[in-house]
């Protein structure tokens, strides 16, 4: 495949979206991207799974197994979270608004 569904996802070379489930998105505050936020991936029971820091453009990325996930962001502009259901391999996008 030459083109990824989301050009901004910036996936590492070798990522195979026919096999891997990737959750990506932006952290935003009143519509503007929030860089430097601590983005936490929590599983269906609310248990912590992974954490990354959002890029200057507010982007984050996780490699996840199928399931229902909560993406929770902590930042100096506030905290927020959103849910994403990963049904199988592919790219899943969810924005997280903090306030």
């Amino acid at each position, binding site marked *: 495949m030459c083109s990824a569904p989301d050009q901004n996802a910036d996936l*590492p070379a*070798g*990522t195979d979206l026919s096999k*891997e489930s990737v959750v990506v998105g932006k952290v935003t505050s009143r519509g503007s991207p929030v860089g*430097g936020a*601590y983005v*936490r*991936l929590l*599983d269906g029971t609310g*248990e*912590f*799974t*992974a*954490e*990354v*820091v959002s890029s200057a453009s507010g982007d984050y*990325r*996780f*490699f*996840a*197994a199928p399931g229902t996930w909560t993406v929770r962001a*902590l*930042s*100096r502009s506030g905290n927020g979270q959103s849910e994403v259901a990963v049904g199988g391999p592919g790219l899943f996008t969810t924005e997280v608004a903090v306030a």
Partner: protein
Amino acid sequence: MSRQDALVSADWAEQNLDAPNTVFVEVDEDTTAYDGGHIPGAVKLDWKTELQDPVRRDFVDKAGFEKLLSSKGIANDDTVILYGGNNNWFAAYAYWYFKLYGHQAVKLLDGGRKKWELDGRKLDTEVPQRPATQFTAQEQDSSIRAFRDEVVNAIGTKNLVDVRSPDEFSGKLLAPAHLPQEQAQRGGHIPSALNVPWSKAANEDGTFKSDDELRKLYSEQGLDSSRPTIAYCRIGERSSHTWFALHELLGETDVKNYDGSWTEYGSLVGVPVETGDGKS
């Protein structure tokens, strides 16, 4: 050991940035974090290029560690305050590593870089110039480091604590969910290991949970404190975090970190591997 000996708060750190014989050291996986801004006066340590042997899979030797700390301007009578990103994973790893080489005056900044940043405390880009020292290390303290044969022999006899996420423990994933899943070894865990993810020992802001909460956590998960304990993860950094909680905060006496961890164990020929959640 106790909490007061092993941890400092962000408030304490902010008030002691210029304290004599005190050196702040940032340890990261991604050392560009330091370059973009660090605690004023802190020096940088790269866990991969500076703490690992460049050829063999092992740590730098005693002479190498002495040379490294001397070049960083860290002396034997300095208290080293470690902090870093990733909820202090690599800072806890460095803490364990400093203790391994006998430097006892080392403490961890509770909450690490995350709490410091979320609190809006000052970060600086100026790189301090510290004059070189003559640091001397001790021989490695084998009472806190486990190797593979000891781990295989510990199955069913010692506490084995697998501190990875449940999906790594069960074998669904081979690495934490924020990293590419490129490893070739088998997925699963060491038979008889308890799965107590490192994150259960930490609050959302990266600080450690209270001693009471930690004690409750490990006893509820079935850790038998009358037996020796070996903690492991994928490459030994998250298990340093749990080693710190058990050995330094709770004062459990016989706790080792298995730094070979799953990237070694999961590639060994002929050893038993268990998959699933370990509860059936």
